[in-house]
């Protein structure tokens, strides 16, 4: 890697950090603007004016918003995410185990769907126009057109209610064997994979076909190269940038997807926690969850960009 590439990568990382600061401000501003007053909800029936005022002062809610923002930002930087309003536990302790569960779900989905999606996309491009290509295209367009809550509820209806093969709800802490794990994860993973794979298949196919139409691939064909060699040696390395970007975008969609899927299957992940936090106006928890999602998103996109920069032969 030469100096120029290093410079580009560093510039990209600086942009990521700047974006993160802007995002944190937006997250904070958005949660402050949420309707409803925490103090009144917390105190419930006991919300006398004196009690409200006292609690407000104790929670620093009377300080200017910008002060609270900086205090919150400083807290995050030092690993202190605040105390949950709802049950007085440190936010970090609440999120910790849930995050592990969500990462497990996302990780299994990634390991399951990325190889399948990429190989389907590449082989569809290789045999462009064949019945296989058409089947893949029709299926992926069909899947991408159906929203995930529809896929999830249909899956519950078919596999849990009628066929009774799988449990309708996923309790990740009940796993004691590999078989159980399969049964618990099958439906959420399949639902999420459906949603993110379609996008990856389409984008991979398009990127590979675009490079297959270039003069250098025609040249390789006229050198006598086989179809596999054309795709794997000539087209794929040059399509890597767009493919990695498509994968990153699809994986970032997992973040939105888990909110719906975790809720439907009652899976104990961060997204479920966040949805519950919204209904109890638990601001520190919502803020931390939102920041977490944004950071993962940013991490994926930045990684994709850096891979695209490093794999660009013109920068070697």
């Amino acid at each position, binding site marked *: 890697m030469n100096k120029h590439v290093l410079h580009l990568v560093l510039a990209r990382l600086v942009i990521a950090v700047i974006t993160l600061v802007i995002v944190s401000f937006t997250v904070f501003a958005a949660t402050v603007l949420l309707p409803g007053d925490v103090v009144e909800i917390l105190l419930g029936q006991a919300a006398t004016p004196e009690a409200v005022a006292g609690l407000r002062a104790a929670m620093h809610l009377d300080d200017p918003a910008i002060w609270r923002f900086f205090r919150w930002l400083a807290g995050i930087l030092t690993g202190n995410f605040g105390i949950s309003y709802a049950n007085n536990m440190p936010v970090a302790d609440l999120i910790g185990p849930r995050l592990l569960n969500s990462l497990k779900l996302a990780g299994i989905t990634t390991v399951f769907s990325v190889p399948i999606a990429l190989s389907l996309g590449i082989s569809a491009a290789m045999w462009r126009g064949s019945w296989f290509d058409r089947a893949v295209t029709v299926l992926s367009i069909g899947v991408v057109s159906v929203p995930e809550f529809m896929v999830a509820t249909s899956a519950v209806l078919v596999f849990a209610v009628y066929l009774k093969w799988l449990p309708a709800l996923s309790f990740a802490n009940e796993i004691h064997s590999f078989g159980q794990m399969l049964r618990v994860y099958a439906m959420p993973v399949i639902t999420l994979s459906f949603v993110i794979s379609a996008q990856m298949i389409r984008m991979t196919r398009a990127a590979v076909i675009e490079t297959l139409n270039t*003069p*250098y691939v*025609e*040249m*390789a064909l*006229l*050198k*006598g190269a086989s179809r596999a060699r054309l795709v794997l040696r000539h087209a794929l390395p040059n399509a890597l940038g767009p493919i990695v970007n498509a994968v990153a975008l699809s994986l970032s969609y997992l973040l939105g997807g888990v909110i719906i899927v975790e809720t439907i299957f009652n899976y104990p992940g961060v997204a479920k926690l966040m949805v519950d936090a919204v209904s109890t106006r638990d601001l520190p928890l919502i803020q931390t969850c939102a920041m977490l999602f944004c950071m993962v998103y940013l991490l994926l996109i930045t990684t994709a960009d850096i891979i695209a920069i490093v794999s660009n*032969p013109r920068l070697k």
Partner: protein
Amino acid sequence: MANLVEIRDLKVEATSDAGRVIEIIHGVSLDVAEGEIVALIGESGSGKTTIALSLMGYARTGCRISGGRVMFAGRDMTQLSEREKAAIRGTDVSYVPQSAAAAFNPAQTIMDQVIEITRIHDLMPRPEAERRALELFRALNLPNPGTIGRRYPHQVSGGQLQRLSAAMALIADPKLVIFDEPTTALDVTTQIEVLRAFKSVMKKGGMAGIYVSHDLAVVAQIADRIVVLKGGEILEVGTTQQVLDAPRHPYTRELLSAFEPKHYASPARPEMTARKPPLLDVLGITAGYGPVQADGLPLMRALKSVSFRLEEGRNLGVIGESGCGKSTLARVIAGILPQAKGDIIFDGRQMARSAAGRQKEELRKLQMVFQFADTALNPAKSIEDILARPLAFYHGMNRRQREARVCDLLDMVRLPRTVRHRRAAELSGGQKQRVNLARALAAEPRLILCDEITSALDTVVAAAILDLLKELQRELGLSYMFISHDLSTVQAICDEVIVMYNGEKVEEMATGLRQAPTHPYSRLLFSSVPKLDPRWLDSLELDPELVSAFARR
């Protein structure tokens, strides 16, 4: 013995986007003997590349070999399976592409691609293949043959890539090499080097070749026989000498006549013009791209202190190779790229640096016509809309006046009035360029900047455009600044020529007087233009010092 190649009654069909099937090659038959070089010549759309590719059993996407036989070394390429064809490609027949820059994979080193044929067909161990490649690099006169293979395609020049693509085609000692316009994208001074290298390697190896080109003079240097094609049919076949000296078909004669030197004399004008101030006076222009440095000049200077003047009613040619700054010069005069230093005085007035700072009347008198009519005409608008816009903008015409004027303009550029309802995509390249010109004329300018306006056109079409420009000049008293890389085009229309090299004006001369160029670079440039004489390349002696100083290898 039988010929190496025997094509009999070849027919190729193409399916249009609308799904219509059209025959684009109508029963072509031709032979190539062992060790013979045959040229396929014709304009774009004549089917020359399609025929050449059929020799590899290949038809581009949307095309299909629909009839006839393509016999190569006794086997019919149209009957072989994909696997059998792949086995022949690269080893027995190989291909040198038109644009080597696009035909190299940007992600692999040059050596990997040059020896790829030996890897695919498992012909020899890698070290031996690399040794062969090195020999070819030397034979093709490439600089730094020992290390060039380790570089990536974007790190070497266009002329080098073109020679490297020949090395790629020759690595497995093929019996037949197909050259598809291999020098069209190159500058003339580079073209000579590449042609010489091709010729000597082919002669030494005793290989047969198919040389596809639209340029008769280039073909005359390398081919034994010439096949003239038009619209997917063979019009004439003969030895090179025969076709050049005694062409039988009128179309061949038309092609040849495009090469006759035409020297231009501008219409007779009163002697007083000399005393009038010049129409355009360019004084010490420096311009470029990139961040501005401490001295107020841009980092990359495309023009360095260029000055010239153009008298009313006369034409100025600007020639030079790619990257010499000739297009930048037009962009500066038009105000698209503001200059960093220097002045432009047009029609007696100092022009603002940027077009945004110029008055409407100043803009009207100075119009520009771009090289690619395809990209210069809005594809979503009808020709009438395109031509009506300057009429409304500069002359404030109402609807009825505009309609009448659009018809006048189409008459002027010799297009039928019915094209006004069509869109640019429905017109041919020559027609589009005429519309492009009509748009400039709509403003009723004094000076038109023509930036390579005939470069993308076929010879015969380009000649017709030049004739049109001359007629318009007689009728309307225009002046042209004509930018081109092609000396003969400039000679056909200009009174004076300036030669540019590396952002500087190196020479200024009149075309009519047959005056010899004095600057060494112009001498090299002028002597590098191929002549129709088949002995020209072999007898040409260029000063090697001159070549190494100026030619971009």
